């Protein structure tokens, strides 16, 4: 099987170190999504795998082959670019056949593979058009088709959905996920959109400033973020973060106090807590408006199926929680909020999640 393995990879541009000593194993057949904010080095990492950028240090292996020393074409990877990078003067058919022709594939085989891929992506009627005569979504399919015909051991995608409108984007997400299920080929997908990551990935690699923050399944990353950065980056709305003071331990677990005086019993073991400031992280769905801390509604965001309520606690800190779509509320209305401590996270002063 061909798993992708990055071993202590670094990349410097001049004096700037963009990727720092990064190691990662992607098992064969995974749909791995590199997720991170703009400028964190996702594209650079992907381009190093593709061979468009040379690592400053470290090794990259695909299956049993070390690939960081071979030319891009010899690596067994295919890439779909953000702006598709279709050859403008070639027809769709020629675009898809180009890579195969270059390695001397017999003509009949090229014809067959192109037809198969075109069939799968429903672009058969477009084969004789040029990229300039296609819509953005069609170009995007052609770019995917060009990758598919090469039957690579790994697909690399660099934000291929960012130029599509919202409806097409969510449709393409589903299609890519289906494509992956059908082909069972390793896919590496770069995005800064956490919805894309959550919906398509079998494994999310959260990156920040050239480092990996966490690797895990979408639900692992969502429910057990390893760092405060991951907790804040994954999930909409973003997790609430509140500075807290440690007050006591109850049954071995930590009890903390919010600035407004509310006490919350967490499941974090009380021993081995670091000294220094602690931060409580709690998602919108774990704040329930029954009774508890006094708060006042300041913003109401109606999303249709649910409503996000932003409310100020007595000390002025803002939290967001959600309610059903048809909730009746007004701005300025007082509410009482209960924090579900069993679902809350505690972060140490270094931003690491505190666990048992």
């Amino acid at each position: 099987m061909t798993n992708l393995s990055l071993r202590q990879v670094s990349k410097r541009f001049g004096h700037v170190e963009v990727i720092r000593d990064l190691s990662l194993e992607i098992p064969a057949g995974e749909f791995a999504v590199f997720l991170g904010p703009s400028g964190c080095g996702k594209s650079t990492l992907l381009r190093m795998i593709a061979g468009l950028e040379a690592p400053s240090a470290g090794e990259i292996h695909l299956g049993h082959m070390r690939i960081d020393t071979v030319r891009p074409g010899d690596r067994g990877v295919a890439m779909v670019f953000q702006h598709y990078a279709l050859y403008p003067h070639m027809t769709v058919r020629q675009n898809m056949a180009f890579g195969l022709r270059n390695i001397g594939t017999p003509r009949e085989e090229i014809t067959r593979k192109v037809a198969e891929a075109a069939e799968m992506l429903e672009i058969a009627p477009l084969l004789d058009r040029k990229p300039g005569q296609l819509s953005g979504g069609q170009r995007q399919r052609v770019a995917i088709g060009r990758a598919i015909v090469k039957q690579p051991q790994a697909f690399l995608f660099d934000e291929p959905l960012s130029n599509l409108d919202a409806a097409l984007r969510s449709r393409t997400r589903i299609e890519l996920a289906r494509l992956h299920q059908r082909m069972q080929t390793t896919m590496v997908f770069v995005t800064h959109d956490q919805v894309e990551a959550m919906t398509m990935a079998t494994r999310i690699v959260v990156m920040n400033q050239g480092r990996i923050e966490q690797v895990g399944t979408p639900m692992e990353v969502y429910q057990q973020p390893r760092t405060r950065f991951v907790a804040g980056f994954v999930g909409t709305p973003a997790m609430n973060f509140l500075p807290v003071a440690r007050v006591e331990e109850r049954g071995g677990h930590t009890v903390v106090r919010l600035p407004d005086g509310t006490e919350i019993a967490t499941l974090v073991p009380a021993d081995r807590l670091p000294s220094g400031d602690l931060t409580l992280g709690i998602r919108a769905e774990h704040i329930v408006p029954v009774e508890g801390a006094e708060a006042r509604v300041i913003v109401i965001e109606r999303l249709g199926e649910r409503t996000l309520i932003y409310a100020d606690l007595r000390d002025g800190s803002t939290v967001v929680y959600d309610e059903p779509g048809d909730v009746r509320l007004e701005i300025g209305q007082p509410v009482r909020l209960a924090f579900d401590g069993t679902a809350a996270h505690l972060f140490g002063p270094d931003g690491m999640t505190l666990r048992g």
Partner: protein
Amino acid sequence: MANPIRGSGGAAIGDTHAANLLFVLPYLVVLIVLLLVPLGLGIWLSFQDYDMLGGWSGSVGLDNFRNLLDDPIFPGTVRNTVVFVLITTPAFVGLGLFLALALNDSLRRSSVLRAVFFGSSVLSVTIVTLIWRLVYLPDRGLAADILALVGLHSFDPVTSETWALPAIAVVTVWWIIGLPMTLFLAALQQIPAELYEAAALDHASRFTTLRSITLPSIRRTIAVVAVIEIVLQFQLFGQALLITGGGPNNHSRPIVQFIYESGFRDLQLGFAAAASQVLFALMLLAALGQMWLSRRGED
């Protein structure tokens, strides 16, 4: 109340305003006075017997053109000029493209060389020919030295019927290769880097990349450079006059020199105007032919 959206002030596109004419007027005047009037005058002149000393002595119909055909020198100048264009235009396209491809990077060395190759374009024809007359000096010039290395002694292109015109072509290419190079460089920079990256992943060799990515991407520029050079090189004059004077035995005399000599030395304006019309027609035909060729290649 629903008001349709309107642009404020000024006329909508498509409206004609007499005032707008004012803006194009200066250009129009220059065009008419300096281009259209002389062009018409030249065409009219080519059907007249007009001597600068004797003045106008009436219309002669096609006589001037018939005389051109029978002239002992003129048909040779047409041949020389066409040969010159046939040598230099491909050289400008080929060499210009080659230099652009070789220097299309951000290395310090390349930017110095780009400046060097472009530098000679700013020299005047007198300086250029001065330099090259030194190069072509028999026995002592740079060309003689180099040719001596390969065993060719006492080779003097300037006085050779075969080599005079190619020698002028070399001077010309050396002189103004900077323009086509710069046009090609500009075109090359327009090609998105992603295309080359996609080609690298598509296993394209350097040659395949050049043939399938680079050349198709700049075909418009190739056509433009070819047309520019055809039009420019048909007007060969200064270099020929100053290096060979048209010799030996008229073998490097271009049409423009013939026009100049019959008009301003022999003072036969009508005759010279007729020769000008022939040159004009040749340039028009060649440029149109080139455009037709490149348009046909497009689909």
